[in-house]
């Protein structure tokens, strides 16, 4: 049995709703750990408030944040699965279903980049990114809607033959530019190398990695570790309360390229919207988070 248009349409609708009403477990755990270590009272109180709000969102079926963002999905397609129907259309229609049925309703956030007009639909909406998984007979879809506060501080620079210290200094410049305006503690992604577009994608995907997961390359593991310490020394703290937790994680990825090296940095706010499900070739849907 192939994976059908109907299954994907429903999956994309459900993923979006879940992402709005649940803060991922790894993120809640990281907030709890951060609260234990925080030395500043206002910062601890803020972290407590965040956790309580996240629990309320989940148990009371409410939105964690009123900015529902715009729809963005990362789709990984196993090379052994069979598809039946229009897949892009399924995402477009799935979002339309969400807009019509979600309770409480979401507001209009999809914005025309030139006229600033707001709507529930738009060109290239939902933003879709496709990838393949060799040999797999399933499809994995991650939904990570992007809102204003955490979206606008992303940045990118193209270096030529950079030293690692230049890359790390640039990373810190991005952290300082954002300050506490992206609803910290944040998850920071950095993509190094490849091409302009590839670096940006790597950075974005890096924010989607689970907190506590390790990069396979020890050199990157070390970089992530020291950058996280560095970010948390800046002292912006949870929501700018001045504490020790400005970031919950720094995730870095790299790709080979030429001697010009794009470096992209992006952020996800503390609610860390991210949900994933898997659809097996027989159409069975499993929520992974």
């Amino acid at each position: 049995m192939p994976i059908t248009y109907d299954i994907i349409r429903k999956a994309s609708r459900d993923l979006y709703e879940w992402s709005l009403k649940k803060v991922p477990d790894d993120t809640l755990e990281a907030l709890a750990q951060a609260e234990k270590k925080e030395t500043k009272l206002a910062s601890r109180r803020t972290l407590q408030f965040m956790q309580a709000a996240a629990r309320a969102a989940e148990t009371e079926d409410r939105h964690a944040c009123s900015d529902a963002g715009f729809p963005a999905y990362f789709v990984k397609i196993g090379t052994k699965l069979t598809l039946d129907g229009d897949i892009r259309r399924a995402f477009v229609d799935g979002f339309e279903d969400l807009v019509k049925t979600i309770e409480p309703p979401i507001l209009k956030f999809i914005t025309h980049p030139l006229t600033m007009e707001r709507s529930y639909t738009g060109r290239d909406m939902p933003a879709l990114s496709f990838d393949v998984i060799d040999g797999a007979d399933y499809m994995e879809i991650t939904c990570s809607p992007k809102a204003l506060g955490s979206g606008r501080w992303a940045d990118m620079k193209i270096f030529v033959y950079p030293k690692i210290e230049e890359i790390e200094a640039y990373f810190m410049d991005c952290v300082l530019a954002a300050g506490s305006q992206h609803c910290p503690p944040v998850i920071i992604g950095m993509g190094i190398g490849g091409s302009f577009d590839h670096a940006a994608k790597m950075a974005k995907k890096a924010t989607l990695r689970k907190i506590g997961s390790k990069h396979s390359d020890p050199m990157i593991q070390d970089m992530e570790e020291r950058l996280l310490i560095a970010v948390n020394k800046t002292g912006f703290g949870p929501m700018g309360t001045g504490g020790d937790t400005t970031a919950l994680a720094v995730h870095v990825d790299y790709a080979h390229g030429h001697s010009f090296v794009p470096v992209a940095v992006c952020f996800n706010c503390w609610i860390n919207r991210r949900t994933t499900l898997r659809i097996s070739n027989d159409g069975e849907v499993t929520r992974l988070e």
Partner: protein
Amino acid sequence: MSDEPQPDIVHLNLPLSPEEARSLSLGDMVLLDGEVTVSAGMITQERIIEALESGEDLPFDLQGQAFFHMGSNCREENGKWLPNYVNPTTSTRFDALMPTIIRGLGLTSVGGKGGMGPQCVEAMQEIGCVYFSMPGGASPLLTNGVVERLETGWDDLIEQFRLARYQLKSFGPVTVAIDAHGNSMFQKLQQEAADKLPGILQELAAARQK
């Protein structure tokens, strides 16, 4: 954990008088009662400024009131407008407009997230106005402190851009992040971070040598 004293969280009634605003200190955590007008729209603020310039009436009186950068969504139940959710939006993006609005309306408190720039801080000092910072993304708990929506104005705009007047009860806690004496937690943190940066970069260099 440190052993700083645990200050009690006090209640304030909105709108504040300029004197009340001046009595607050940076870092005070407070719960808010009373009335506030909210909007998340740039276009809304542009309209306020147009009205101030032309002398036209606003949909309702905002003189000396509380104005929060906040989006909201309501449902109707038994003739009342009850909130589904409210949440602050980033205030810095209104930096070019807010000094005129703070002065023109004599606002005694502004709320949002992320703070406001130096020109706003100056206007606030002049008028007797504080900035309440609230956590973004903690919408369920913030919304619990909102009793009902009393009225809206400029209903031709999309819901989160309209002017919406709300009744609050124990809203927050929110933090006084800009006081009425020219002090801003955001500027302070930004400055401190900039001062720390050379040291942080040195530590990164040392960590790379390991």
